[in-house]
């Protein structure tokens, strides 16, 4: 039992630590709906992974990146408004995923676990995946911090100054896809975005520089995971939603109490 809880805690903390800084970028660039779309499509990745018998995490990453590329291409054509496009892709990908899963008669899939996460079902391998993927995300974030931020602040200025804007934008999508693949086990496809944006939005209240906001988002996410896990253990509530509820509570506290911004 202790082993189980420890694994859950380790996994959850790993996910929260990377989801925070990336969530800050999602908030700054107003990509929340974009993140949702990628997350919803992850279920299709799971189904394909089972069908083709490949590693699920890998299938999810490949599908998310593929979808991100499709999105960018369609966006450039200006056929319909971006939010409509995202809505279409998000819900068709989710439905397609659900339909595909129903074809897998010989494999039993705990659908609820994929939709809402099951922190307590997390295995040793999952923990390795989380820390491997998480380390990759953090390394890339640190290495490309300045260009990522420059492109986020103002794409035109960045381009004139010679930053490779398109490549940086692609990198950011890749990072979001990675985090989704890694975080899915913990909070499920329907709640992943919340683990990215709620801690980041909470951190906004307390920070006056981008680095502060990114690191606070990590800490706040970890706090939400700890308290969510504890609540889930204490009252036997579903873990994923409990973590999100805790994150939302922290957000409320940050914005109702008169906290001073760090200088």
């Amino acid at each position: 039992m202790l082993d189980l809880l420890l694994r859950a805690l380790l996994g959850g903390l790993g996910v929260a630590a990377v989801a925070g800084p990336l969530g800050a970028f999602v908030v700054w660039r107003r990509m929340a709906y974009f993140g949702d779309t990628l997350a919803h499509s992850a279920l299709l990745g799971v189904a394909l992974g089972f069908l083709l018998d490949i590693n699920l995490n890998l299938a999810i990453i490949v599908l998310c990146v593929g979808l991100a590329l499709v999105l960018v291409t369609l966006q450039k054509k200006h056929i319909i408004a971006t939010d409509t496009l995202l809505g279409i892709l998000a819900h068709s990908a989710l439905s397609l995923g659900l339909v595909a899963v129903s074809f897998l008669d010989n494999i039993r899939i705990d659908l609820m676990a994929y939709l809402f996460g099951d922190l307590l079902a997390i295995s040793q391998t999952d923990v390795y995946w989380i820390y491997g993927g998480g380390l990759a995300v953090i390394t890339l974030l640190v290495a490309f911090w300045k260009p990522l931020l420059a492109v986020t602040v103002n794409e035109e200025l960045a381009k004139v100054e010679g930053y490779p804007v398109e490549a940086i934008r692609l990198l950011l999508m890749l990072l979001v896809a990675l985090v989704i693949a890694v975080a899915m086990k913990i909070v499920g496809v329907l709640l992943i975005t919340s683990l990215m944006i709620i801690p980041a939005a909470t951190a906004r209240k307390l920070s006056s520089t981008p680095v502060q906001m990114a690191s606070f988002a990590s800490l706040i996410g970890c706090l939400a995971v700890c308290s969510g896990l504890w609540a889930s253990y204490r009252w036997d509530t579903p873990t994923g939603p409990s973590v999100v509820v805790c994150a939302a509570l922290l957000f409320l506290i940050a914005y109702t109490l008169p906290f001073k911004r760090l200088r």
Partner: protein
Amino acid sequence: MNKRLVAFDKIGISFDGRVLLENIDMTISEGEIVTLIGPNGSGKSTLIRTLLGLQEATSGEIVRHKTLRIGYMPQKLHIDPTLPLTVKHFLALVRGVDKQQILPTLEKLGIGHLLKSQVHVLSGGETQRVLLARALLNRPNLLVLDEPVQGVDVNGQVELYNLIENIRNELNCGVLMVSHDLHLVMAKTDTVVCINQHVCCSGSPQHVTGHPAYQALFGVPGADESIAIYAHQHDHVHDEHGSILSDDGDAHAHCKHH
């Protein structure tokens, strides 16, 4: 002879079959201030965006000197309010910036005190100067300024233009400025290029205002009696709170404020 930084060679841009610009010829040399004027929708911004590489020309070619390095000051700066950012951090984003230069550059523009301010709380004039600082930190030999005085009051405009002129004198850089306000720009500028999809006329300010194509677009100078130009003869400067700064208390005794 100052070297030629940029030459536009018969640049044309059309979009969905609509012609935005055609046959634009224009050059900018080191140490030269060129002002691009034209009515709204005349293609001024499009032309600048082509030079900056943000837009492709449909025809023609832009010849850039191999040493060309552009400092770009956009019309305005929108930064998402969810992104906490101080002026210092904003300026540190310049690619390959020498961080030691940030404070001196701000001080040169008279806004050293804004170093630690959040970018979201700056006034219009302060934002313009921060953007100018960012352009300068890119170590340019050509400054491209898109409506640099937009949203700045008349006094502020005069100050900003003086600053730009000083920068030109100090760096001997070329300056390409977009404006829809002719009268305040003319005084400092070497060449005015008046465009309305094509180049209507270009030359020295005096030459351009006398040109029939210019008069057709903007009217004959002085013909509109409801607007007059008042040539201020300020012998004093104001501090940030609007009080008059002077060396001796009697400096503006002959100047009455109404």
